[in-house]
């Protein structure tokens, strides 16, 4: 097969019809560029949702019931920024005649403050101070037992009773935190349980599954370690949904664009059908004619895709410097609890999916004009003049 001949002829065709080629290319590029940007934006939104959800309290990887022979230092791999140690103590809070059972979590306040942004969610009073005998109540519990910052309440843990000063009241918007947890610093005299909880924060860009693999390889028996994808199935689903929506958008937009492209080429081919008849008369096979038309369509789409991807990348880069602030729309949304400043993030998918889908579609788009030529007898085409 004389591939270079068909390639050259297809290029010549696009060059000679440059005005139409340009308009079609422009349309396709805009569509591709927009999609690259939208996917990058969706990446950015996913990123911020993950950051908000994991950064609030649990870290990207959370460990439950870790035995005390494992220390936080053991978990501090090179890709880890912080391991927050927490102790969960089933407790009953007592104030006057009111009681409330809940889990009291003993934490190291200065470490929490340095790595999670749970401390920002204090709505009355203040966050805990290192080593103090005090407590941070969730709003619901505070209301139930009728307590204010400054009050003193009793925390009963097992057989022990501790007098705790209410330092503040928090509300995060995350049910699991807001309902049944209260916090206190690890203070002298507090009897800690055998096991502890870990919130592991990873360095930006660390791949979650490879981090998990690293942990399981390290030999420590830590069945309790869970990545956020497991510990927050709601978030995982939401992100998947987000992905699906974007992909549907990609398919619809490119489907419409390809339909336009197919239509334009069908018109091209019909208006020049005699040329294809002449080619057939010269001994060009039906297959070769099909290749020629396909090449025209594909070539144009490839060029337009390249331009579109570049344009999309440029848009991502220019918007990415300042970010897009969505806080007006997300103030009541827990997935944006700490920040709603979105930085579009380019990924292989963002730059690769739209052109790949378009390439698939443009072969389908080429099928129509190819069929228009293939479905007619050469002598009939020629007699159309």
């Amino acid at each position: 097969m004389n591939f270079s001949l068909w390639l050259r002829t297809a290029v010549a065709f696009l060059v000679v019809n440059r005005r139409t080629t340009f308009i079609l290319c422009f349309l396709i590029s805009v569509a591709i560029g927009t999609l690259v940007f939208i996917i990058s934006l969706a990446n950015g939104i996913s990123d911020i949702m993950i950051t908000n959800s994991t950064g609030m309290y649990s870290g990207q990887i959370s460990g439950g019931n870790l035995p005390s022979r494992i220390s936080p230092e053991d978990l501090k791999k090179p890709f880890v920024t912080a391991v927050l140690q927490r102790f969960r103590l089933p407790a009953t809070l007592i104030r006057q005649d009111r009681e409330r059972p809940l889990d009291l979590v003993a934490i190291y306040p200065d470490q929490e403050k340095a790595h999670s942004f749970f401390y920002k969610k204090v709505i009355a009073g203040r966050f805990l101070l290192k080593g103090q005998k005090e407590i941070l109540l969730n709003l619901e519990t505070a209301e139930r037992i009728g307590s204010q910052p400054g009050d003193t309440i009793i925390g009963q843990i097992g057989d022990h009773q501790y007098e705790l000063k209410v330092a503040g009241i928090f509300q995060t918007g995350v049910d699991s935190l807001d309902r049944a947890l209260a916090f206190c610093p690890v203070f002298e005299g507090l009897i800690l349980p055998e096991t502890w909880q870990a919130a592991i924060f990873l360095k930006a860009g660390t791949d979650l599954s490879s981090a998990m693999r690293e942990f399981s390889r390290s030999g420590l028996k830590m069945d309790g370690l869970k990545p956020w994808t497991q510990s927050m199935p709601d978030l995982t689903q939401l992100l998947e949904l987000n992905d699906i929506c974007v992909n549907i958008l990609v398919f619809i937009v490119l489907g419409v664009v390809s339909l336009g492209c197919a239509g334009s080429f069908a018109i091209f081919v019909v208006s020049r059908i005699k040329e294809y008849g002449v080619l057939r008369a010269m001994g060009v096979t039906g297959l070769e004619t099909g290749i020629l038309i396909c090449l025209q369509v594909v070539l144009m789409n490839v060029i337009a895709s390249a331009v579109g991807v570049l344009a999309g990348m440029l848009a991502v880069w220019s918007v990415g410097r300042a970010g897009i602030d969505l806080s007006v729309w997300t103030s009541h949304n827990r997935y944006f609890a700490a920040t709603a400043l979105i930085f579009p993030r380019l990924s292989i998918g963002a730059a690769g999916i739209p052109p790949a889908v378009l390439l698939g579609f443009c072969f389908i788009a080429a099928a129509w004009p190819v069929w228009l030529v293939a479905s007619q007898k050469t002598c009939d085409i020629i007699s159309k003049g």
Partner: protein
Amino acid sequence: MIQLKNLSKIYARGKAAVTVLSDVSFSVKNGNLALILGKSGSGKTTLLNCIGGLDLPQKGSVNCFGIRVDKLSGRKRNNFRRKQLGFVFQSGNLITSLSARRNIEFPLILNKYASAQIQDRVAFLLNRLDLEDVADAMPSSLSRGQAQRVAFARGVAHGPGLLLADEPTASLDTRTGLELIRLMHALSKEEKITMIVATHDKEIIPFADLILHLSDGRIKGENE
């Protein structure tokens, strides 16, 4: 030698069958120019299509240089056209997105000639058909006469045994048409290319070795 025997072509028009060619027989010697004269609708184009394998007859045989064109498979017919045949139609012959030169090159590349050979051949034809000035012009900027000369150059570029021309002069004025025929005649004699020309242009008659009068799909007369 081109030899047709009892060629018949019937088209279905609605429910009725229309006989467009019936029992057409003739032969053309290699290197000769045969003229098919006939009114509009007499079946000239259909006859050429059957010879060139663009259409298949219901009956009879077409023998080109020992090849039964009507018996070839689709792929072989295609190959036969590519190597052995040239076409010139009344108009709209050229690939509009290719320059005159690229149009002429086309069958040479299609037949995988070496690039040096292609250059020589194209240069020769451009010179011979007085097309050097417009070699790189696009078809849309060629005059009709020039366009038909390019079409002829392309038709004979790859040295086919047979050139089929369907009213090549119909789109031209008398003088330009005559000039074209003169060039076609001279070159085909030189290169021993057999030509079958369908026309109702009487000006061509003096160039013909054989004249076939086609009327209602039948050969009504034959003069050498």
